[in-house]
């Protein structure tokens, strides 16, 4: 019994660590975008390196949890759902990293007049991811609270879409070359996509939460 409880505690801590990493990655993404916009490129590259590290850790934790759940035949009824959530959440970190890598490679020129809109879009997307992390934690411990967090994810996703659209309109209103406009639009879409990903995980989570209800 004590050994089994130790095992469950280990898996619980692995899942919690995984979600911590997702949350850290999202916040680091926000800081990295702020650094980029304010031209602190050295700091931006450091953030990117941190996120690469988070991505590796998240992968390792996810695989470790998967292996444990299968090897110990834990939560047979919900195992597929839990693994699907972890994998979908892991993809958000991948997207965060890919977006920053693109910034690092392409170095798009940001017009200072749009700085605020870029930051607002980023904050909305990151808030969506943070609420997703709360929702996933609640899925494991407090099922009744899941919908509350899911509702907030949907809110921030809409907010990110709304500000993102405004940003894209402003981009195409700038007096710059069309190719630069298209490049900036893609970056805006990349940032919006993070909140879309969070929303997609929530769609799954909402169904899984219904399945888990008695």
């Amino acid at each position, binding site marked *: *019994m004590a050994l*089994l*409880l130790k095992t*469950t505690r280990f*898996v*619980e801590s692995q*899942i919690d660590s995984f979600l911590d990493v997702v949350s850290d990655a999202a916040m680091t993404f926000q800081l990295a975008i702020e650094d980029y916009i304010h031209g602190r490129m050295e700091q931006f590259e450091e953030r990117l390196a941190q996120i690469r590290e988070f991505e590796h850790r998240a992968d390792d934790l996810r695989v470790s949890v998967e292996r444990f759940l299968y090897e110990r*035949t*834990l*939560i*047979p*009824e*919900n195992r597929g759902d*839990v693994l699907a959530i972890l994998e979908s959440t892991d993809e958000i970190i991948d997207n965060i990293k890919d977006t920053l890598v693109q910034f690092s490679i392409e170095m798009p020129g940001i017009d200072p007049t749009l700085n605020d809109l870029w930051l607002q879009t980023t904050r909305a997307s990151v808030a969506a991811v943070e609420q997703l992390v709360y929702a996933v934690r609640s*899925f*494991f*411990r*407090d*099922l*009744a609270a899941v919908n509350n967090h899911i509702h907030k994810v949907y809110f921030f996703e809409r907010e990110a879409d709304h500000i993102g659209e405004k940003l894209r309109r402003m981009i195409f209103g700038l007096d710059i070359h069309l190719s630069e406009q298209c490049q900036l639009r893609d970056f805006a879409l990349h940032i919006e996509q993070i909140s879309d990903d969070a929303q997609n995980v929530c769609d799954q989570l909402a169904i899984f939460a219904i*399945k*888990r209800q*008695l």
Partner: protein
Amino acid sequence: MFYIYLLSGLYLGWSLGANNTGNIFGAAVETKMIKFKNAALIAAIFITLGAVFEGSGASDTLGELGSVDALGGAFTVSLAAALSITSMVRSGIPVSINQTIVGAIIGWSLFTKRLLDPQSVVTIASSWVFAFLLSAVIAFALFHLVRPLINRSKMHLIKQDLLIRYLLVAVGAFGAYALGANNMASIVGVYIPVSPFKDISIGGFYTFKGTQQLYLLGALSVVLGIYTYSHKVMKTVGKDIFRLSPVTALIAIFAESLVLFFFASRGLYNFLLRHGLPTFPLVSVSSTHVIVGAIVGIGLAKGGKNIRYDILGKMALTWIIAPILAALMSFVMLFVMQNVFEQKVQEETHYIFDRVTVTRIADDICDIALLSPVNGRSFTSEREIYGELKTQEELSRDDIVKVIAVSEVFPMEVSLEKLAQSGYIHSFNEEQLEIIKTLEGRSYRHKWELRDALEKHSVFESVKEPKTGLQKNHNKELDNLFSLLYHSFRPGTGKK
């Protein structure tokens, strides 16, 4: 010869192991919460324990329905019950061993022209419906108790999973114990009156009774059923009949186990009696119907959607069809057994209305004038006497039953040696044995003569007009002790 005849009972046991274990562990195995090998081991151990230690509770009620007193009869009754199950299961109708065995015993009573006790039939039949409803109510209540508990506990999913696993094992073990206790009477209960097993004293500390040995054998056939066929059935039960989550499965199994236990435990029965509380009849009920009742309860607690009313309809139908089919089959097979294979399906019984019995009846039961249709005559069946006496309007059915009991010829010779040889000696205390010893060597022609001789002593004294449940239970226990004496002192018994 007994062991060959016992085969049909063991076949029933095998089918209980194969079919009914799924009602306890089906959902847990199918949801992969418990591995089959673990479920089978737990079921095997606890069904055996339940059968050996509590199995006798439900057998008393079956005995009241008809005490099959010949090996050939017991074999045929079991076989008829088993074949009825097979034929109905093949038709896709969920049926239980209890219903068919009850039907088969009724068939035996009809064939042997015994009087059927309508009260026992009503008790048993109403218990099936009552057990189903009770299980639904318990599951409904448990659901409303467990859901807020789980929601409030905020326990991690992984920890909750582990806890439910342990609870499924514990509740499954309890369910298996209750199944063994409740259903063993249906499997080998009919063999009790003809069982050759004798009580064995283990080191003077514990007496392993003859009935317990018979139940152990029955339990082993159940275990065989579990290991050879139940895996397949568990998968079906866990998937097709109902689809439950581990938590709702736990609630359903717990409700089922409680109901099976309520209807099987003599300990609980005595406890309730002592405290003046209403008791549950000790009757064998169907684990299939009880688990379906629990699922209906959970379904209703969840709003009443997705309840499969077709299964409920079929089940209600079996409450009527299964006993009738088994009774018919039993009747026909007993006829074939007796007339084609020339096997004894009942002990020959004589009823005589001579000076001794008529005087006794006149003293205790009714006016001598009412016995005019039977006075001075002898009979070979209860039904014949009943046919003659029912014309007497002043005689109630109960009176006629008492008259028949007094007129039954049952020669016996009191012998402590015979009692020891029969193995039943351990059922009596020192004081009772001392009283029996004072009658050593005496012969009696009727059961009541021996009973009268013993009832003069306080240790054998019954309550004349029992009012409370406790008094009724005291009389019932005395009846059981007297039955052991009749069985032991009959010529030809005790020296097998």
